[in-house]
C-alpha cells in the first residue's frame, strides 16, 4: 500500500482552501450583475467546469497518443482517469448552464455552439467508456481507447465550427427574442478576478482528482497482480 506522497497531501489542503476562497470570491467578492442578478454567479463555475472538461479531453487524447507510441500502461491509466474526471466536469458544465439559462432566458437549454459541443463531448466520453467496457483484452482495450480518444478529440473543434456556422445562418434560441443570446455581459475588474480565480481553483481540483484517480488505478493493478500471483502459485 503506497503511502500518499507529501506533495499530494499538500495539494489536497491547498485545493480545499482555494475552493473555499473561490466560494467567497464568487458569492461575496464579485458584484451582483445588473441585468441577470445573482444567478449570473453560476457563470464562474459554469465556464470553469467547461474549460476543465475540455482540457481533460485533450489530456486523454495526448495520453492515448503517447501510449500508442511508448506502450507503457501508465499513459493509458492517465487517459482513463482524465476521461472519468472530465466527464464529471462536463456534466457540471451542462447542468450549471441549465440553471443559468432558466431564470435568464426562460429556457432550460440554449442552442449555444459551446454548450452543444460540450454536450457532444460528454456523449463522446460516455462512448469512450462503453467501448472500453466491451473489450476483454487489456492491451486491446488500451489501444482502442487511445485511438478513439484521438479521433474523437479531433472531431470536437470541427463540430464546434460547424454548429457555429450553422448558427450564424439559422440563429435559434428558443424562448428568447435575442438571436445572439450567448450570455455575454460586460465584466467589471472584480468579476474578472473572481472568474480567473475560479478557473485556477477548478484546474487545481482537476489535477488533484486526477492524481488520486491515477494512484487508485495503479493500486488496483497491484492488487490484481498479487491476486494472480497467489492463485497461480
Amino acid at each position: 500500500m503506497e503511502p500518499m506522497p507529501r506533495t499530494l497531501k499538500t495539494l489536497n489542503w491547498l485545493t480545499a482552501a482555494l475552493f473555499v476562497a473561490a466560494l467567497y470570491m464568487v458569492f461575496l467578492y464579485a458584484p451582483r450583475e445588473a441585468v441577470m442578478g445573482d444567478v449570473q454567479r453560476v457563470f464562474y463555475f459554469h465556464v470553469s467546469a467547461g474549460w476543465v472538461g475540455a482540457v481533460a479531453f485533450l489530456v486523454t487524447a495526448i495520453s492515448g497518443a503517447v501510449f500508442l507510441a511508448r506502450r507503457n500502461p501508465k499513459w493509458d491509466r492517465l487517459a482513463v482517469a482524465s476521461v472519468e474526471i472530465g466527464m464529471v466536469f462536463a456534466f457540471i458544465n451542462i447542468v450549471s448552464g441549465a440553471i443559468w439559462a432558466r431564470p435568464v432566458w426562460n429556457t432550460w437549454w440554449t442552442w449555444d455552439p459551446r454548450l452543444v459541443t460540450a454536450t457532444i463531448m460528454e456523449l463522446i466520453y460516455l462512448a469512450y467508456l462503453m467501448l472500453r467496457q466491451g473489450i476483454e483484452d487489456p492491451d486491446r482495450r488500451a489501444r482502442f481507447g487511445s485511438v478513439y480518444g484521438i479521433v474523437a478529440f479531433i472531431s470536437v473543434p470541427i463540430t464546434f465550427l460547424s454548429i457555429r456556422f450553422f448558427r450564424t445562418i439559422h440563429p435559434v434560441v428558443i424562448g428568447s427574442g435575442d438571436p445572439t443570446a450567448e450570455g455575454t455581459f460586460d465584466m467589471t475588474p472584480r468579476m474578472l478576478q473572481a472568474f480567473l480565480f475560479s478557473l485556477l481553483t477548478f484546474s487545481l481540483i482537476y489535477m488533484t482528482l486526477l492524481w488520486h484517480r491515477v494512484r487508485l488505478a495503479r493500486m488496483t493493478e497491484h492488487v490484481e497482480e498479487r491476486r494472480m500471483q497467489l492463485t497461480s502459485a
Partner: protein
Amino acid sequence: MIEVRKLVKTFGRKPVLRGLDFSVPEGEFVAVVGPNGAGKTTLLRILASLARPTLGEVRLAGRRLPAEAGAVRRILGVVSHQPLLYGDLTAEENLRFYGRLYAVSELEARVQQALETVGLRPHRRDLVRTFSRGMQQRLSIGRAILHEPLVMLLDEPHTGLDPEAAVMLDRLLGQVAGEGRTVVMTSHDLQRAASLANRVDVLAGGVMAASVRKGELDPEELPALYRSVTGA
C-alpha cells in the same frame, strides 16, 4: 530458417511464454505439442507476424520480426484452425482473392494447380459455405501454398476433422512438406505429431521442455515423456 531466442509474451500481466528458445533448420518438419493454454497458438501467431513478442528475438529466413514483418509474410503460408475463407465465395474465387493479395503471377494457373494439389478441383465452383470441415481445411492449405511459401505454419489443423478427412490431410501435409518446405505444426495429438514430423517439441511452462527427433525415442515412450515433462 526459424530462430527464436528468449521469447517472452505477456498478455496484460499474465506471462504465457517465458523466455522460450526454439530453432528450426531449413526443410525440417517440427511438431509442437503441449497442454491447453501452454502457448502453442501464441508462439505460432508470433511466428506468423500476427502478434508481437513482448521480449526476445525472433528471426525467419534471417529477417527479424516484427521489424521486417512485411518481407517475412511473403514467404509464409499459415493454416489456422479457422479456415480463413469466405463462405459466400466459391473455392476458386477464394483462391483468386488471396492470389491477388499476394501478387501471385500466372494467377489462374496457380489457382487451378493448388486446387488440384488439395484434391478440390471438382468442387472449384462450389460455395465454401457448402464445404465440410475437412474440405475447408484442405482449401485452406491450398490458400496457404498458393504463393509458394518457404515456411508453413499450421495451428492444430486436424481439429474437428473426422478420421477419414484427417488421413487425407496427413497425406497432403506429407506431400507439401516433401517439397522441401520448412513446416511447424502445433498439435494436440502426440502420436500423429510423431508420425508426421521429423522432430517433436514439447511446450510446457512457457518454454520448450523437451525435444525429440524421429527415431531417438520409441513411439510408445512418448506419452510417458510428455507426462513427465508437463506434469500431467
